């Protein structure tokens, strides 16, 4: 990403979907995700005038991380709202049969529920890595933690998620 500041509308267009997916996977429901996106864009709008050239992605994800943490502190609760039925939408390029689609949606819900069971530091690191596609270095910058801490959070998060999904399979 170029270091040239974008307008907040451009930030919304270019990064909005990515931020929304991050927020949704962290919060587990569309309303909280939409609120978080709006809060992030508001902070971007306020902050662009004082933005110093550097890593724009790092700056943006730092804002997103802070907005999420502030919201968590404000609510003082772990978000556990269930997914609404049929909310997830598949890429238009894939066209599985009805049974396969239903099975995939159920699996998606199980994965989302398992994600919500993770401590938020682990969930955030895993989502930034595996959903958003950030590098360890970018995640470290966003969450203001050493890369070694990021490595550990991703690893432990995946182990917990795997354990949780394995229990679902047994159950």
């Amino acid at each position, binding site marked *: 990403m170029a270091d040239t500041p974008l307008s907040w509308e451009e930030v919304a267009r270019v990064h909005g979907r*990515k931020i929304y997916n991050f927020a949704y996977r962290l919060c587990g429901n569309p309303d909280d995700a939409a609120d978080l*996106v709006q809060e992030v864009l508001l902070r971007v709008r306020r902050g662009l005038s004082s933005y110093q050239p550097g890593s724009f992605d790092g700056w943006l994800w730092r804002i997103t991380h802070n907005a999420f943490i502030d919201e968590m502190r404000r609510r003082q609760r772990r978000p556990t709202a269930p997914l609404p039925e049929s909310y997830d939408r598949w890429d238009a390029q894939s066209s599985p049969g009805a049974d396969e689609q239903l099975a995939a949606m159920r699996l998606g819900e199980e994965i989302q529920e398992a994600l919500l069971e993770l401590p938020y530091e682990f969930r955030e690191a895993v989502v930034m890595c595996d959903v958003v596609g950030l590098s360890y270095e970018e995640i470290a910058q966003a969450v203001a933690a050493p890369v070694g801490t990021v490595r550990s959070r991703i690893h432990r998060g995946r182990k917990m998620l795997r354990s949780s999904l394995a229990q679902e399979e047994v159950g």
Partner: protein
Amino acid sequence: MSHLDELLSVYLDGEITPWESERVEGHLRDCLRCRRTLIDLNSARTAIRSLPTLEMPIGLVPDTQVRPARRRTVWMGAAAAVAAAVIALAAAVASSPEPLNLNDVSRQLGARASLDSGAAPFKVVLPTGGLE
């Protein structure tokens, strides 16, 4: 024998140094437990990455055009390909306590994740699985 633990996730993500990579692959040849852990970690990683990309609710932002995918240099993709090849091999031998044959490993890795020796890998970019 000490085990690799979080280095296995680093290995899967291609965020590993050549020295660490050598250490991981050497350890995996002889450690059944770490081969199984690698498969479990890859399973979790694949599950998360299989989640569908959601579209934003209409009106949440001014416009929601789809932009080109984020790009990453080829060495990251190559590292991931090597990791995938090792996982496949680990899966093949996970149920057996027999050590891996080093020659077979390197031959299969070369076949699955070869980089042309004449190429200029750092000038080539590949799309990642991330969102844009």
